[in-house]
Structures are given as structure tokens and as C-alpha cells.
């Protein structure tokens, strides 16, 4: 008997099977959306320390009430104006010790961003979370604006010209980036030291 070739397998329904799997994965999985505003909570201190005395002019008070109205330094304000106001406060350089500030040197506003200026955020139980996040976002943006400006100033002399702070951080976290990470880390830490995020939340 002549040897017969094995009959070809019918692959017509392969597409159906693959579609079935595809639809299963579409339904059961989600595209991960894991980015956000990172914060560090203050630890609970068992031996209650006296809070350090901060002069009123060094505190930038941001308050949100139950109707989602924003009050900054005892004045009503729109969220879109908050960033500029926070930058102006941080950048003020009242005592003249901050070499990179470009503020107005108003004696009634903050001394310097390195270890004096503090932003205090207060919210009520009825404040909506969306507004709270908007405010947090604008305050972080204010810090980032100053840090970016500082990064552009000092980046060039350390060999990282035309790179703002956020780009520096992104490069530092990027495994594929081939530059000198040690040096970049020094620059990032210097900027973080010069412009620390001092954001305190009132309980």
C-alpha cells in the first residue's frame, strides 16, 4: 500500500480559540495605573516633644474648608493661583542667606527655603479628596518649580547641562541611562538639601 501523507489539521478555528483567550484577558486584567503623589507620614512620637517655635512669617498657611474653599494666609484664593503664591513665599529670601533665591526679600514673608519656610496644610473632615489632591499637587509643583530652576543653574557645572530636576530624577531611576549616576545623585541630594519639601499637615 502506498503510504498516505498525514491529513492536514484544520486550523480554521484557531482564530476563534485565540479570540476567546484574548477576550478573557481583556476582561480579567487591568492596565496598572500606579503613580501618584508620594508622601511620608510623621511618626507618632511616644514622648511628646515641644513643637519647635516657628515664626509666623515663616509659615504659609493653606486651609481648606468643608465647602472646598481654599484660604491662603487668611485670604480666599483659587487653586490655580496657589502655585505662584507658594513659589513667591518660598523664594522670598527675607534674611538674605539664600544665594539662589530671586524673591522680593519682603521682611514680612519667609526667611529662606532651606531651613525656615514651612507650608502648613489644614483640611476639614468634609473637604473632598479631589480638592485635597489638587492642593497637594500645586504645592508639590511649587517645590518642583524652584528645584527645576536650581537644577538648571547648577547642573551645567556638574556636567548635566539643560536638565531640570525632574529629568535628573528620571535619569537617575532609568536603568538604561549611561551617564554618571554617582555625580547625578550628588546634584540631586544637594538640591533636595537646599530646597527641602517642608509640608506639614495639621491634624
Amino acid at each position: 500500500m502506498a503510504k498516505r501523507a498525514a491529513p492536514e489539521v484544520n486550523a480554521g478555528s484557531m482564530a476563534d480559540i485565540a479570540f476567546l483567550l484574548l477576550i478573557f484577558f481583556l476582561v480579567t486584567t487591568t492596565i496598572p495605573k500606579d503613580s501618584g503623589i508620594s508622601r511620608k507620614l510623621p511618626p507618632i512620637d511616644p514622648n511628646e516633644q515641644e513643637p519647635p517655635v516657628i515664626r509666623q512669617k515663616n509659615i504659609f498657611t493653606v486651609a481648606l474648608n468643608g465647602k472646598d474653599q481654599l484660604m491662603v494666609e487668611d485670604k480666599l484664593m483659587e487653586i490655580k493661583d496657589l502655585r505662584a503664591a507658594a513659589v513667591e513665599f518660598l523664594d522670598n529670601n527675607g534674611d538674605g542667606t539664600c544665594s539662589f533665591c530671586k524673591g522680593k526679600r519682603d521682611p514680612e514673608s519667609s526667611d529662606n527655603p532651606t531651613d525656615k519656610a514651612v507650608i502648613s496644610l489644614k483640611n476639614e473632615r468634609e473637604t473632598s479628596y479631589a480638592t485635597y489632591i489638587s492642593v497637594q499637587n500645586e504645592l508639590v509643583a511649587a517645590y518642583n518649580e524652584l528645584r527645576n530652576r536650581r537644577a538648571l543653574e547648577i547642573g551645567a557645572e556638574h556636567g548635566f547641562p539643560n536638565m531640570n530636576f525632574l529629568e535628573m530624577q528620571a535619569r537617575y531611576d532609568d536603568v538604561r541611562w549611561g551617564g554618571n549616576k554617582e555625580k547625578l545623585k550628588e546634584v540631586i541630594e544637594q538640591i533636595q538639601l537646599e530646597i527641602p519639601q517642608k509640608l506639614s499637615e495639621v491634624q
Partner: protein
Amino acid sequence: MAKFNKKKDGGLPPVNTAALPDIVFMLLFFFMVATEMRPNTLKIANNLPVANQIEKLDKKNPISFIYIGKPSENYTAKFGTEARIQVNDDFADVSDIVPFINQERAALREEQIPYLTVSLKVDKKANMGIVGDVKQELRKANALKINYTTGTGDVSANED
């Protein structure tokens, strides 16, 4: 007159679908790689607010999720319409947060415990009262690294 036989009008030739499975498999693999299994079945509304000063959560570090939002329709009869907390697959009270964090820590290798980040996925309509309570509990549990997980966009989209 065989010479002038009309050509048979067969219409359009059939489209070759042999490559269809390959295309579908390609899509399938894309989705398998780019997505992940839904970690928890949500019993609450979870419409995250947006922000643009955001950092990516570091996947190298362990992450625990706490969801807050108002119960979805099936559960409103039992749990009301006020925002509630969900951890793992079920509703939780504020007092369940500390045991939850301890349980998450128990599942980790010891050297990873200090790097545990708590991702707060809070519905944008929730109010800060419950978020403040959760934050206070997290301080009690000494889980101080938190992340307000948000979408990406301009904050003006948060108002409506």
C-alpha cells in the same frame, strides 16, 4: 465557439484568513504583558482624581493597597452611601487597618519590611475625614510611606 467561452464570474476571491490567528495571538500577548490581573474585586466606586506632579510607584518595593470610596450599587442597601474602606476583598473598618498592615508585613521578607509602601486609592468624591482616619491608623501601624495614587492630568479636571 469554445474560443469565446465567457469567463466564469466567480466574484471576489476569498480573503486569505490564514494570518488571522497570528494577529490575534499578537494582540493576546500584548495584553498579557501590558496588563495585570485585577488584584482585588472592588466593591466600591473608585474614580481616582488626577494630578500632574506624580512619581511612579517603585515596583521593586512591596505595595499594599487600601481602597476608599462609596459602596457600589449592590452594596448600598447594606453599607449605605457614605465612603467606606476596602482592603483585600472586603469592606473594613478603620480599626482593621493596623491588623491589615501587620498581615501584609508578615508576608514579606524581613529586609523588605521597611520599604512597604501603602497606596491609597481613594475615590475623588470621598471626603477627607475617612482619609484622615486611615492616615492616623497607618501612623499607629508605623507604615509611614504612603502614595496617593492618582491618574495623570491637569488638576482642573478634578472639579466638577
